[in-house]
């Protein structure tokens, strides 16, 4: 029996939103193929209730591989387990998130499975005549979209860009099976050890998972002016991003950098202020749902690709935007 699989992601026992996005993708493919959809959970302390949510949001089966030694992502152990599962169950398709762990785990496993792997896909479909997976992804800094097939090898593996699809609504009437896979010492690779996590609480941001990103560039002129962006992000319920120029000037930390040598994001809303829209910056934002540009140069490149462009001074526009949003919020309360 063929299968479509997704690899769930979690932190501290909670499943990440992208786990459900993957199921929405997987459900569509499984339905087209008429095969079951399974989610694989490799981790620790992911409760039965959490795993039931995977079923409620599209999975027919959940393979649960849990152990305290799997609490944090360590590529070698996770890869060993996923490879073993592939050998046992022979899935046709495996989808994982294009995140720091998914983009490490999948190529490591694909090599061992002699499988084709397509990176950072934004569209997936099934080719009607052959049943092959059609994988579409941006490449060359988002300048082209390539469609890729793996005709002669199984599984067909793909990483999927977070936020590029919406989770299915919860359906509590859905039935499914949770299969617990016992963990033995042979499945754990002890070479690498996780020492801990460091969060620069004041200056760390999870850009990839944010729905709204307010970004500033060289046009913001100094570090202090980023408070305008911080305030606006707070009002909108978003986070702050930046161009490389702003990061290189030390106005804000590297985790905020968007673009070719920074992060690739697909938020619902991206607002760029004082950012010219270089190809390298655009490479990181092209798949945003809505792009708003604030720049006093009418010919700025970002204006050209924006859904809404304001030709004006950021130091006038941003405070006014903040003021009107607050006003609106006040009215609503």
């Amino acid at each position: 029996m063929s299968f479509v699989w997704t690899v769930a992601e979690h932190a501290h026992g909670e499943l990440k939103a992208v786990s459900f996005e993957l199921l929405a993708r997987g459900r569509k493919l499984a339905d087209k193929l008429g095969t079951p959809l399974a989610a694989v959970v490799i981790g620790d302390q992911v409760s039965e209730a959490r795993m039931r949510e995977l079923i409620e949001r599209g999975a027919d089966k959940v393979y649960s591989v849990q152990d305290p030694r799997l609490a944090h992502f360590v590529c070698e152990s996770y890869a060993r387990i996923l490879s073993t599962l592939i050998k046992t169950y022979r899935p046709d398709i495996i989808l994982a998130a294009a995140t720091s762990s998914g983009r490490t785990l999948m190529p490591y496993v694909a090599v061992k499975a002699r499988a084709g792997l397509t990176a950072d896909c934004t569209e997936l479909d099934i080719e009607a005549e052959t049943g092959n997976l059609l994988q579409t992804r941006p490449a060359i800094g988002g300048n082209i979209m390539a469609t890729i097939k793996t005709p002669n090898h199984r599984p067909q593996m793909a990483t999927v860009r977070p936020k590029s699809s919406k989770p299915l609504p919860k359906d509590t009437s859905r039935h499914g099976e949770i299969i617990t896979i016992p963990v033995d010492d042979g499945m754990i690779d002890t070479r690498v050890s996780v020492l801990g996590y460091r969060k620069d609480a004041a200056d760390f941001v999870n850009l990839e998972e944010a729905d709204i990103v307010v970004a500033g560039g060289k046009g913001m002129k100094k570090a202090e002016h980023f408070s305008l962006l911080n305030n606006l992000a707070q009002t909108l319920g978003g986070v702050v991003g930046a161009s490389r120029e702003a990061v290189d000037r030390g106005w804000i930390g590297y985790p905020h950098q968007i673009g070719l040598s920074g992060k690739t994001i697909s938020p619902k809303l991206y607002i760029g202020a004082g950012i010219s829209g270089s190809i390298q910056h655009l490479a990181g934002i092209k798949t945003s749902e809505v792009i708003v540009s604030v720049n006093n140069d009418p010919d700025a490149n970002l204006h050209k690709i924006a859904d809404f462009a304001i030709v004006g001074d950021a130091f006038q526009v941003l405070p006014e935007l903040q003021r009107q949003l607050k006003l609106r919020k006040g009215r609503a309360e």
Partner: protein
Amino acid sequence: MRIIVPIKQVPETSNVKMDPVTGTVIRAGVETVVNPLDLYALEAALRLKAQHGGTVTAITMGPPPAIKALKEAVAMGCDDAVLVSDRKFGGSDTWATSYTLAQAVRKLGAYDLIIAGERATDGDTAQVGPGIASWLDIPIATYVARIGALAEGRLTLERLVEEGYQQLSVPLPALLTVVKEIAVPRLPTLRGKKAAKHCDIPVFSAENMGLDPSFLGLKGSPTKVVKIDAPKVTRGGKTVQAGDDEAVSAAVGQLIGFLEEKGLV
């Protein structure tokens, strides 16, 4: 400490052309550079060498003109370089590329560390680094932002992940991929340029590496690019002027209306 740095020659990002039939990059007539993200890998390697002693070897898989990228690496301070080149490698996907590069690393003999770039700016998959590690069965740490102490054959380092920095202790040999935060790349020196002029760059081929022909090039690659489209870039958006105070207020009002329409506020 012996460090190997795989680098890729890529077309300058601003003017890339694709062959719509084969789905491969047209290289003729396009200015090529060392993948900008590989410069961080070279810098990280050269700094480790300065700290702990040893050598840095740059290695690239590509057509003969890719020698230019290797010379640039030597000019930055690498001790030597290897070109992995053969007609048979043409059209390799990341599976076949990482196989070929891993075999080249094996042919080089003992090593302590492989440092790759985060991703190449053309293919953009970030899969070759982890792929090489998998072929060699060595531990991998991706998105490394800081390299700390080396003690008893283990490196402490920090990976930039979604939740913050993950701190790891990794035994050598291992493969790292690094992000821009790791260090500012140095420029080539005059002495380095001289060394580059005179250095001998051996060529590894399918034959002298004894590779499995069924694992090579287009034929050995599980993935096939079947279609290339240019995405629509412009969104036909709305432009409003905000020249004076009144216009600013009106423009912002319109923006909020637009965001409301989209359900974003």
